[in-house]
Protein backbone atom coordinates (compact mmCIF):
# COMPACT_ATOMS: atom_id res chain seq x y z
CA UNK A 1 0.00 0.00 0.00
CA UNK A 2 1.22 3.49 -0.85
CA UNK A 3 0.81 6.72 1.09
CA UNK A 4 -0.96 8.23 -1.91
CA UNK A 5 -3.56 5.44 -1.66
CA UNK A 6 -5.01 7.05 1.45
CA UNK A 7 -3.61 10.59 1.63
CA UNK A 8 -5.99 13.02 -0.07
CA UNK A 9 -3.59 15.54 -1.58
CA UNK A 10 -6.31 18.15 -2.22
CA UNK A 11 -7.12 18.29 1.50
CA UNK A 12 -3.58 18.91 2.78
CA UNK A 13 -3.32 21.91 5.11
CA UNK A 14 0.11 23.52 5.40
CA UNK A 15 -0.87 26.22 7.84
CA UNK A 16 -3.48 25.21 10.38
CA UNK A 17 -5.49 28.06 11.89
CA UNK A 18 -6.61 26.18 14.99
CA UNK A 19 -4.12 26.01 17.83
CA UNK A 20 -5.83 23.51 20.13
CA UNK A 21 -6.11 19.78 19.56
CA UNK A 22 -9.88 19.58 19.10
CA UNK A 23 -9.91 22.59 16.81
CA UNK A 24 -7.16 21.06 14.71
CA UNK A 25 -9.06 17.77 14.38
CA UNK A 26 -12.18 19.65 13.27
CA UNK A 27 -10.24 21.78 10.76
CA UNK A 28 -8.68 18.71 9.12
CA UNK A 29 -11.92 16.69 8.93
CA UNK A 30 -13.67 19.77 7.51
CA UNK A 31 -10.99 20.00 4.82
CA UNK A 32 -11.66 16.39 3.84
CA UNK A 33 -15.41 17.13 3.63
CA UNK A 34 -14.83 20.35 1.66
CA UNK A 35 -12.98 18.33 -0.95
CA UNK A 36 -15.71 15.72 -1.24
CA UNK A 37 -14.06 12.90 0.70
CA UNK A 38 -16.75 12.96 3.40
CA UNK A 39 -20.34 14.16 3.67
CA UNK A 40 -20.69 17.51 5.44
CA UNK A 41 -23.18 15.81 7.82
CA UNK A 42 -20.52 13.34 8.88
CA UNK A 43 -17.98 15.96 9.98
CA UNK A 44 -19.31 16.39 13.52
CA UNK A 45 -19.81 12.70 14.38
CA UNK A 46 -16.35 11.89 13.02
CA UNK A 47 -14.71 14.78 14.90
CA UNK A 48 -16.47 13.64 18.08
CA UNK A 49 -15.18 10.10 17.76
CA UNK A 50 -11.66 11.35 16.97
CA UNK A 51 -11.75 13.43 20.17
CA UNK A 52 -13.12 10.47 22.12
CA UNK A 53 -10.36 8.27 20.72
CA UNK A 54 -7.72 10.88 21.54
CA UNK A 55 -8.99 11.13 25.12
CA UNK A 56 -8.68 7.36 25.54
CA UNK A 57 -5.01 7.58 24.62
CA UNK A 58 -3.05 10.18 22.72
CA UNK A 59 -1.95 9.43 19.17
CA UNK A 60 0.96 11.80 19.70
CA UNK A 61 3.67 9.23 19.03
CA UNK A 62 6.42 11.68 19.89
CA UNK A 63 8.98 13.59 17.82
CA UNK A 64 6.47 16.26 16.83
CA UNK A 65 4.08 13.90 15.05
CA UNK A 66 0.51 12.88 15.85
CA UNK A 67 -1.55 10.38 13.91
CA UNK A 68 -5.16 10.87 15.00
CA UNK A 69 -7.32 8.14 13.51
CA UNK A 70 -10.58 6.38 13.96
CA UNK A 71 -12.54 3.55 12.44
CA UNK A 72 -15.97 4.97 11.72
CA UNK A 73 -19.18 3.55 10.28
CA UNK A 74 -19.59 6.64 8.10
CA UNK A 75 -16.31 5.95 6.29
CA UNK A 76 -16.82 3.93 3.14
CA UNK A 77 -13.14 3.73 2.30
CA UNK A 78 -9.86 4.61 3.93
CA UNK A 79 -9.06 8.31 3.63
CA UNK A 80 -6.68 10.67 5.32
CA UNK A 81 -4.59 13.76 4.89
CA UNK A 82 -1.68 15.73 6.31
CA UNK A 83 -1.70 19.01 8.19
CA UNK A 84 1.05 21.28 9.49
CA UNK A 85 1.06 23.62 12.41
CA UNK A 86 3.84 26.17 12.57
CA UNK A 87 3.07 27.05 16.18
CA UNK A 88 2.79 23.50 17.45
CA UNK A 89 -0.22 21.86 19.08
CA UNK A 90 -0.50 20.18 22.46
CA UNK A 91 -1.60 16.61 21.76
CA UNK A 92 -0.60 15.26 25.18
CA UNK A 93 2.07 13.38 23.23
CA UNK A 94 4.02 10.50 24.72
CA UNK A 95 7.15 12.70 24.92
CA UNK A 96 5.10 15.76 26.00
CA UNK A 97 6.50 17.74 23.05
CA UNK A 98 4.26 19.91 20.84
CA UNK A 99 3.04 18.43 17.57
CA UNK A 100 3.87 20.12 14.27
CA UNK A 101 2.81 17.43 11.82
CA UNK A 102 -0.55 15.73 11.94
CA UNK A 103 -1.48 12.78 9.77
CA UNK A 104 -5.17 12.05 10.12
CA UNK A 105 -6.54 8.70 9.00
CA UNK A 106 -10.15 7.55 8.79
CA UNK A 107 -10.95 3.90 8.14
CA UNK A 108 -14.09 1.84 7.72
CA UNK A 109 -14.96 -0.32 10.72
CA UNK A 110 -14.68 -3.69 9.08
CA UNK A 111 -11.12 -3.58 7.75
CA UNK A 112 -8.76 -3.68 10.76
CA UNK A 113 -5.99 -5.44 8.81
CA UNK A 114 -6.01 -2.85 6.03
CA UNK A 115 -5.88 -0.13 8.67
CA UNK A 116 -2.78 -1.74 10.21
CA UNK A 117 -1.20 -2.01 6.79
CA UNK A 118 -1.72 1.71 6.16
CA UNK A 119 -0.34 2.58 9.59
CA UNK A 120 2.71 0.36 9.06
CA UNK A 121 3.39 2.10 5.77
CA UNK A 122 2.97 5.51 7.33
CA UNK A 123 5.24 4.79 10.29
CA UNK A 124 7.90 3.25 8.08
CA UNK A 125 8.32 6.74 6.64
CA UNK A 126 7.58 8.69 9.81
CA UNK A 127 10.34 7.00 11.73
CA UNK A 128 12.89 8.44 9.30
CA UNK A 129 14.34 11.69 10.62
CA UNK A 130 14.60 13.22 7.17
CA UNK A 131 10.97 12.48 6.27
CA UNK A 132 9.74 14.08 9.50
CA UNK A 133 12.05 17.05 9.04
CA UNK A 134 10.92 17.69 5.45
CA UNK A 135 7.27 17.32 6.41
CA UNK A 136 7.67 19.83 9.19
CA UNK A 137 9.57 22.28 6.99
CA UNK A 138 7.25 22.12 3.97
CA UNK A 139 5.42 25.39 3.48
CA UNK A 140 3.43 24.53 0.37
CA UNK A 141 1.05 21.72 -0.53
CA UNK A 142 3.25 20.96 -3.57
CA UNK A 143 6.24 20.27 -1.35
CA UNK A 144 4.26 17.78 0.72
CA UNK A 145 2.81 16.13 -2.38
CA UNK A 146 6.35 15.75 -3.78
CA UNK A 147 7.52 14.27 -0.50
CA UNK A 148 4.69 11.71 -0.49
CA UNK A 149 5.38 10.69 -4.08
CA UNK A 150 9.09 10.39 -3.38
CA UNK A 151 8.36 8.27 -0.31
CA UNK A 152 6.08 6.02 -2.38
CA UNK A 153 8.87 5.45 -4.85
CA UNK A 154 11.42 4.33 -2.25
CA UNK A 155 11.72 0.53 -2.02
CA UNK A 156 9.29 -1.07 0.40
CA UNK A 157 11.79 -2.08 3.07
Amino acid at each position, binding site marked *: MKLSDFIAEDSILVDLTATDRNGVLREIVQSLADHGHLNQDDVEPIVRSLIHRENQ*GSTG*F*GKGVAVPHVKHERCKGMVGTIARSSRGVDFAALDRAPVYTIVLLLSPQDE*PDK*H*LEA*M*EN*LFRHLQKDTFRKFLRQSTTVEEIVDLIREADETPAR
Partner: protein
Amino acid sequence: MKPRPGSHISAAAGRWKVLQDTVEQQTNKEVLRQVVIRNRQGLHARPVMQFVDLANRFPCEVQVRKGKLQVDGKSPMEMMLLEATQGTVLQLVAVGDDADQAATALAKLVESGFGEEM
Protein backbone atom coordinates in the same frame (compact mmCIF):
# COMPACT_ATOMS: atom_id res chain seq x y z
CA MET B 1 48.45 -39.97 25.91
CA LYS B 2 49.40 -37.17 23.57
CA PRO B 3 47.21 -34.14 24.06
CA ARG B 4 45.30 -32.93 21.03
CA PRO B 5 46.96 -29.88 19.53
CA GLY B 6 45.34 -26.73 20.78
CA SER B 7 43.20 -28.53 23.37
CA HIS B 8 44.65 -26.51 26.25
CA ILE B 9 43.60 -23.37 24.41
CA SER B 10 40.04 -24.54 23.92
CA ALA B 11 39.88 -25.65 27.55
CA ALA B 12 40.97 -22.19 28.64
CA ALA B 13 38.55 -20.62 26.21
CA GLY B 14 35.84 -22.88 27.61
CA ARG B 15 36.55 -21.73 31.15
CA TRP B 16 36.58 -18.14 29.97
CA LYS B 17 33.24 -18.71 28.23
CA VAL B 18 31.70 -20.08 31.43
CA LEU B 19 33.02 -17.10 33.36
CA GLN B 20 31.74 -14.72 30.73
CA ASP B 21 28.32 -16.36 30.67
CA THR B 22 28.06 -16.07 34.44
CA VAL B 23 28.86 -12.37 34.24
CA GLU B 24 26.42 -11.94 31.36
CA GLN B 25 23.70 -13.68 33.33
CA GLN B 26 24.19 -11.31 36.21
CA THR B 27 24.29 -8.12 34.21
CA ASN B 28 22.52 -8.95 30.97
CA LYS B 29 19.89 -11.50 31.72
CA GLU B 30 17.92 -12.27 28.57
CA VAL B 31 14.37 -13.54 28.69
CA LEU B 32 12.43 -14.64 25.64
CA ARG B 33 8.66 -15.07 25.48
CA GLN B 34 6.49 -16.01 22.55
CA VAL B 35 3.09 -14.36 22.39
CA VAL B 36 0.11 -14.33 20.05
CA ILE B 37 -1.96 -11.26 19.20
CA ARG B 38 -5.47 -12.18 20.39
CA ASN B 39 -7.58 -9.09 19.87
CA ARG B 40 -9.53 -8.73 16.65
CA GLN B 41 -8.20 -5.28 15.79
CA GLY B 42 -4.59 -6.45 16.06
CA LEU B 43 -1.69 -4.41 17.38
CA HIS B 44 -3.06 -1.00 16.43
CA ALA B 45 -2.11 2.35 17.93
CA ARG B 46 -3.90 2.07 21.28
CA PRO B 47 -2.42 -1.35 22.20
CA VAL B 48 0.97 -0.15 20.95
CA MET B 49 0.81 2.80 23.33
CA GLN B 50 -0.24 0.48 26.20
CA PHE B 51 2.66 -1.83 25.40
CA VAL B 52 5.24 0.95 25.12
CA ASP B 53 3.95 2.59 28.27
CA LEU B 54 4.35 -0.66 30.22
CA ALA B 55 7.73 -1.46 28.64
CA ASN B 56 9.05 1.94 29.64
CA ARG B 57 8.32 1.23 33.31
CA PHE B 58 11.11 -1.36 33.23
CA PRO B 59 14.76 -0.29 32.98
CA CYS B 60 15.64 -3.38 30.90
CA GLU B 61 15.88 -3.38 27.13
CA VAL B 62 12.79 -4.68 25.31
CA GLN B 63 12.85 -5.88 21.72
CA VAL B 64 9.95 -7.36 19.79
CA ARG B 65 10.45 -9.73 16.87
CA LYS B 66 8.15 -10.76 14.06
CA GLY B 67 10.05 -13.12 11.78
CA LYS B 68 13.19 -11.29 10.71
CA LEU B 69 11.86 -7.91 11.77
CA GLN B 70 13.02 -6.67 15.17
CA VAL B 71 11.91 -3.41 16.73
CA ASP B 72 12.46 -1.49 19.94
CA GLY B 73 9.56 -2.29 22.27
CA LYS B 74 9.90 1.12 23.87
CA SER B 75 9.44 3.06 20.64
CA PRO B 76 5.82 3.51 19.50
CA MET B 77 6.90 4.43 15.98
CA GLU B 78 8.93 1.23 15.62
CA MET B 79 6.22 -0.90 17.22
CA MET B 80 3.75 0.25 14.56
CA LEU B 81 6.01 -1.36 11.96
CA LEU B 82 5.13 -4.83 13.25
CA GLU B 83 1.79 -4.69 11.47
CA ALA B 84 0.69 -7.48 13.79
CA THR B 85 -2.83 -8.57 12.95
CA GLN B 86 -4.93 -10.98 15.00
CA GLY B 87 -3.16 -14.34 15.22
CA THR B 88 0.33 -12.94 14.60
CA VAL B 89 3.08 -14.61 16.62
CA LEU B 90 5.64 -12.28 18.21
CA GLN B 91 8.76 -12.88 20.27
CA LEU B 92 9.40 -10.61 23.21
CA VAL B 93 13.04 -10.29 24.18
CA ALA B 94 13.88 -8.53 27.43
CA VAL B 95 17.49 -7.93 28.43
CA GLY B 96 18.46 -6.66 31.87
CA ASP B 97 18.14 -7.31 35.57
CA ASP B 98 14.36 -7.01 35.50
CA ALA B 99 13.98 -8.91 32.20
CA ASP B 100 11.84 -11.60 33.84
CA GLN B 101 9.31 -9.20 35.32
CA ALA B 102 9.16 -7.12 32.13
CA ALA B 103 8.69 -10.11 29.80
CA THR B 104 6.03 -11.60 32.06
CA ALA B 105 4.08 -8.36 32.38
CA LEU B 106 4.27 -7.58 28.65
CA ALA B 107 3.33 -11.13 27.63
CA LYS B 108 0.34 -10.96 29.96
CA LEU B 109 -0.77 -7.67 28.39
CA VAL B 110 -0.55 -9.04 24.85
CA GLU B 111 -2.26 -12.34 25.70
CA SER B 112 -5.07 -10.47 27.47
CA GLY B 113 -5.90 -8.88 24.11
CA PHE B 114 -5.26 -5.43 25.60
CA GLY B 115 -8.72 -5.50 27.12
CA GLU B 116 -10.28 -5.46 23.67
CA GLU B 117 -12.70 -7.69 21.81
CA MET B 118 -11.03 -11.01 20.96
